């Protein structure tokens, strides 16, 4: 981490908040991994562990009225956006009290109230939607940014290029956030892209772009504040490349044959939580006691989320076909 951050509110309160959010995501997901082994959570489970600084940092720059489009690795984004841990956990369980009534699961956390349009699980498939949301806002005169998260693997998809071109051509208020964790499932960036500098793709579409250390939450927040300010001023898109790393496997089925344990260990030394903890203590924002209190508080939230999910009802099977289409009574 750096010595100074220009655009970040360097107060104890804010540091505590960032620490709390990142630790919540970490402990929540560690619990999810445990629950997966216990077969409470099934399907795919893509953990964000190691990448927490990105969702938390970017969200600081977004307003409640902004839109968010995320990927299938979106538990962290949902929590950082303020979705209740209870509803997110119940969704993991597939319960009716889940954020998507148990129809989405880990990969499709949605919340209209948070303008969280969901986890999209086709790589690159969320980008055109983000462009459309921003187009609607521009046409309706809404002062709103649409923030679209995706991985570096998406850069190989046609939808990535089509969307960047459209957003630039139509000067749409989209913040593209590429969370570059180095691997598209098991394929390293340099094994799949002729141009490994992702920002250059954006620049080729005349979109201003910046790369940021995705293991440093303050750097991410600073970059996101800068980006959203530019978007709100110019009504054109901005592209952030967050260089980050996933500590856990791609999903629970991944044997991790494609990378060395030493590489993971090396990145873990620069982990977003350890770095931030060291920095906030060295700079006298927070103490070990503060961290102990945060851990305690987070443990309560996670336990409550699990208890909520355990107790939550299952959707009635008779309601299987509900919401395949919109009931006539709900016509907008």
């Amino acid at each position, binding site marked *: 981490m750096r010595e100074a951050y220009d655009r970040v509110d360097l107060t104890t309160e804010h540091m505590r908040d960032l620490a709390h959010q990142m630790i919540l995501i970490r402990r929540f997901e560690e619990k999810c991994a445990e629950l997966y082994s216990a077969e409470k959570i099934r399907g795919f489970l893509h953990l964000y562990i190691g990448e927490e600084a990105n969702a938390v940092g970017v969200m600081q720059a977004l307003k409640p009225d902004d*839109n968010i489009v995320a990927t299938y690795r979106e538990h962290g984004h949902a929590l950082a956006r303020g979705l209740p841990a209870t509803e997110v956990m119940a969704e993991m369980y597939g319960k009716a009290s*889940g*954020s*998507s*009534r*148990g*129809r*989405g699961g880990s990969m*499709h956390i*949605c*919340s*209209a109230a948070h303008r969280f*349009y*969901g986890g*999209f699980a*086709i790589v690159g*498939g969320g*980008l*055109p*939607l*983000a*462009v*459309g*949301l*921003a*187009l*609607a*806002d521009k*046409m*309706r005169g809404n002062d709103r940014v649409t923030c679209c998260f995706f991985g570096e693997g998406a850069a190989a998809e*046609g*939808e990535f290029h*089509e*969307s960047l*071109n*459209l957003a630039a*051509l139509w000067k749409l208020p989209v913040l593209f956030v590429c969370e570059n964790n180095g691997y598209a499932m098991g394929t390293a960036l340099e094994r799949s892209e002729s141009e490994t500098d992702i920002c250059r793709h954006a620049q080729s579409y005349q979109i201003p772009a910046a790369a940021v250390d995705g293991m440093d939450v303050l750097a991410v927040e600073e970059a996101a504040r800068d980006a959203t300010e530019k978007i709100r001023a110019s009504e054109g898109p901005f592209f952030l490349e967050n260089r980050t790393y996933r500590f856990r496997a791609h999903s629970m089925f991944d044997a991790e044959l494609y990378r060395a344990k030493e590489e993971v260990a090396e990145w873990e030394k620069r982990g977003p939580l350890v770095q931030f903890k060291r920095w906030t203590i060295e700079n006298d924002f927070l103490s070990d006691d503060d961290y102990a209190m945060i851990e305690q508080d987070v443990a309560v939230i996670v336990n409550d989320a699990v208890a909520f999910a355990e107790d939550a009802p299952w959707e009635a099977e008779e309601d299987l076909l*509900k*919401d*395949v*289409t*919109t009931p006539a009574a*709900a*016509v*907008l």
Partner: protein
Amino acid sequence: MRRITYRDAIREALREAMQKDERVFLMGEDVGRYGGAYACSKGLLDEFGEERIRDTPLSESGFTGAGIGAALGGMRPIVEVMTVNFSLLCLDQIVNNAATLRHMSGGQFSVPVVIRMATGAGRQLAAQHSHSLENWYAHVPGLRVVAPATIADARGMLWSALEDPDPVIMFEHATLYNEEGDIAAEGPWAVDIDRAAVRREGKDATIITYGGSLPKALAAAQTLGEEGVSCEVIDLRTLRPLDTERILSSVANTHRAVIVDEGWRTGSLAGEISAQIMEGAFFELDAPVARVCTAETPIPYARHLEAAALPSVDAIIAAVRRTLRR
């Protein structure tokens, strides 16, 4: 009454929708300055401007997805994809996003987008501009699929589709654009897109069809009528959800069914309709259900080969006669 073409009807419907609801806009390849690949939007750019008659790059997935996103964002977009063949480039957006979002979000999001596309053969455009893939979309829960076959439906169905809170795929058969017909001088134009339409009443056999095959079915029914065979012709109008009730009640009256579908026979919509008749009206049948579909080949260029591949009036007449054992 006044006489207009199918193309005029679509254009009038577009204009009316734009006038009635400021959330409506049209986007697609060459819809603006060019006036639409089939000239459906000719003149609309001057009337409504570039924001609402929005030319797009050749990025089917990008702009169709943007239409879906704009619908999520409170607009009522009409996305024009030049032909169903090109729509395979945006199949991901339609099937994985538009069709799933309502259910996948537990009912939180609706996607009120209308995606129009031309379909079908008959203009010697060969194997990449001529296919009928309506059944691919009709397979997918979460979508409504409509196919206006008459001038009146071309005039009225767009607004009905826009009023649907869910994604609607609208198929316009390319050979219909120049068809002329009489419609009422003034509206209302709204079409009941929950119901199939009986285009000709009859008692000896039911011909079930939609879109570009309707004129052929009506011509066959006319010829058969002159021979004393009375055919009922049902225009499905909506391919998903199917108006099963109307299909079954007609078959219960005529006891014979011939399905005309420009899709390939294998895995066709005709196959689905046939199965529904087996399930719901088996004991009413006096003959096996017959299907008239496109031959199992990519559509060829040469005129005589293309004609040989497609459902023809003669083939429909022969199929009806077979069910009557004549």
